[in-house]
């Protein structure tokens, strides 16, 4: 196979993988942007969402019913988290909040396994995980249909969220809360409701990410680890930027795959576990708040 064609295939595959990472990272960004909390439980939420969706379908609900029920469940989870975990910890140090979300990870993981069991499940979105035929025939590139579908979904989601943030009243309220809680309170923005809303939206994003990842890898516990893939994306993109997440995702995905294919064999392979993180450090050395993150101004 021609060298350039192979390179192209690796590149495109990497870009599409990166989109999948960005989907997961999106949930992190939403919550951090609005409440300043780094929600480590996002990976567990992805798992829980996907598992609940498949669980409801197994209980007999058809696709078009299970979806809104799961959305409702995730929204409920978000509200519950805000009420029982975040509100008592308002104003605490960010490490404490981070630790609380890690504790939350255990709770959600345990809950998911308790309620839905530990069996591995299949998620069929009706889209085959096979190469797109006309692309394969015309260019010899094997690009999976699910990857392309995921890219489209992610694009739509990011565009929607970006529009919501910049054009709607709710979006303005969210941005105000992200900027300064006290000031937002003082002009009458209902802080608790906004937080509950953000966590609910993050839950829905987790559901979308969970469904796409679940369709590719099966709905089982390893989905929790997709959060670790999303962290370098967050660093490079900046914790507070929604478009940054997509750009960073593309960078991480492409770089990771290209490195694994071209550099990997020279050092024995398996470098995907640390390469994105080292890449993130290199980016941070140049831009300590990520490519699109807000510059933190510290006053002495």
């Amino acid at each position: 196979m021609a060298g350039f064609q192979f390179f192209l295939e690796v590149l495109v595959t990497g870009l599409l993988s990166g989109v999948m990472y960005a989907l997961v990272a999106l949930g992190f960004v939403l919550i951090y942007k609005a409440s300043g909390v780094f929600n480590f439980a996002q990976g567990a939420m992805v798992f829980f969402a996907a598992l609940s969706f498949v669980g409801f379908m197994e209980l007999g609900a058809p696709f078009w019913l299970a979806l809104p029920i799961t959305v409702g469940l995730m929204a409920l989870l978000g509200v519950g988290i805000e009420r029982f975990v975040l509100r008592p910890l308002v104003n605490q140090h960010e490490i404490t909040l981070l630790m609380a979300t890690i504790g939350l990870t255990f709770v959600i993981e345990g809950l998911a396994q308790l309620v839905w069991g530990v069996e591995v499940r299949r998620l069929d979105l009706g889209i085959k995980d096979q190469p797109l035929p006309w692309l394969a025939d015309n260019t010899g590139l094997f690009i999976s249909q699910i990857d392309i579908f995921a890219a489209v979904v992610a694009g739509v989601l990011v565009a929607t969220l970006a529009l919501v943030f910049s054009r709607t009243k709710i979006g303005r309220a969210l941005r105000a809360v992200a900027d300064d809680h006290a000031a937002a309170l003082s002009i009458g923005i209902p802080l608790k409701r906004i937080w509950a809303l953000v966590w609910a939206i993050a839950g829905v994003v987790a559901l979308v990410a969970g469904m796409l990842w679940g369709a590719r890898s099966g709905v089982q516990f390893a989905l929790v680890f997709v959060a670790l893939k999303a962290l370098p994306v967050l660093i490079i993109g900046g914790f507070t930027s929604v478009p940054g997440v997509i750009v960073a995702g593309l960078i991480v995905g492409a770089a990771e795959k290209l490195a694994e294919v071209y550099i990997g064999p020279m050092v024995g392979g398996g470098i995907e576990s640390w390469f994105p993180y080292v890449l993130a450090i290199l980016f941070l050395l140049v831009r300590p708040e990520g490519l699109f993150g807000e510059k933190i101004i510290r006053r002495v």
Partner: protein
Amino acid sequence: MFDDGISRSLRGLVAAVAVAAATLVPALAQAQGKEQYFGIPSYRVGPFAAGGTGFFGGIIDYLQYVNMKEGGVNGVQMVWAECETEYNAARGVECYQRLLKKGDLQMHIFEPLATPIAYGVLNRVDDDKVVLTQYGYGRSDAADGRVFPWVFSTMTSYWSQASAILNWISTKEGGVDKMKGKKIAHLHLDSAFGREPLPVLRRLAKDWGFELIEIPVAAPGIEQQAQWLRIRQERADWVISWGFGAGMNSTAINSAARINFPREKMVGVWWAGSEEDVLPAGDAAKGYFAAANVPSGKQFPLVQDIEKVVYGAGKGNLSDPKRIGNIYWNRGVTAGIFWVEAVRNGQRIANKRGQMLNGDEMRLGFEALNLTPARLKELGIEGMLPSFKLSCADHEGAGVVKIIQWDGAKWNSVTPDWVSSDRKMIREMVEESAAKYAAEQKITPRKC
């Protein structure tokens, strides 16, 4: 007011600590007559829970079956206690210590089904007189019973399995001489487990003349795009899928489908050959091969009897009875069979019919494991296990696998007989490696 909050939480903390201290003192169990106690370090949560619940469920179901059907072994009831290890070395070691003694009873067989935990307790089993069974995983060189008196790698180690898989591939290619020039990709989890068969694969590559392409996958392995693109570029003829965890294994199958790599040219290690590994991949998994140390299926008389006797009385361990006959559950049942046979043998050898065994007697019983074809038929597991026996020097026994294929709904055996490894070569490698270990650790191998 501030103080009250603190006092309350303080008092709560003190109370909790007191309760904790009380519960940690192991309760004295009343020795109720004659019992043989087993500690079961199970994992029922976490990424491998699907397999764990099946395997440990199978063991418990078989022990329950022996108690119910035969009243134990010569009247000695099988009793057990569980401890959750979460597939974690530190938790596993703590479980080992906690399960070791239960009142007057002590456990003498430990099967964690987890390499990190097996390694964590490897150094303790000698002193505690506990048989570490490593059923189908762990150190391959533990097959040399002279260097590892208390460690077993029943009934087929990783090295034997790799050799057997390659033997089978060579038959599909038309003979060992046809293997020259072929490309075999070893797609593996980038860990000790994944690299374990490499000595065997590399040696066979040299002897037979095929090219071995080693392709590691970083944990947890739910992203394998880069690896499969490499496989495509190299134009591998066969892929040995040496993964662990449903995420990694089903992703391997899906990724193969994405580049149109024929699933019929993939052979999975037995950790990649269970229902949980192929179900998420759906139709893409049709035609995928795997090695199995115990095939799946409910056609075996013992399996049907367990379903009738144990599940019929509502004492089954699996929460979903549809899993009876699945790969992990069947494997668990055979593990239980090994344990009970060891007890039977031990009672016979030590002349302690109807009594509890101690550590040395249990080990003697385990080493006397002799599953003849007649015995297999008696137990109702003909075809489920090969006929093999252990000995003082040979802690592996069989060194064979069955090759199974997924047809979309279930696994079917494609080899009516068991596929063997190159016993002579493997034993040579085992003894060499064990000797090196003994020299490094300054152990004198025992005489057998």
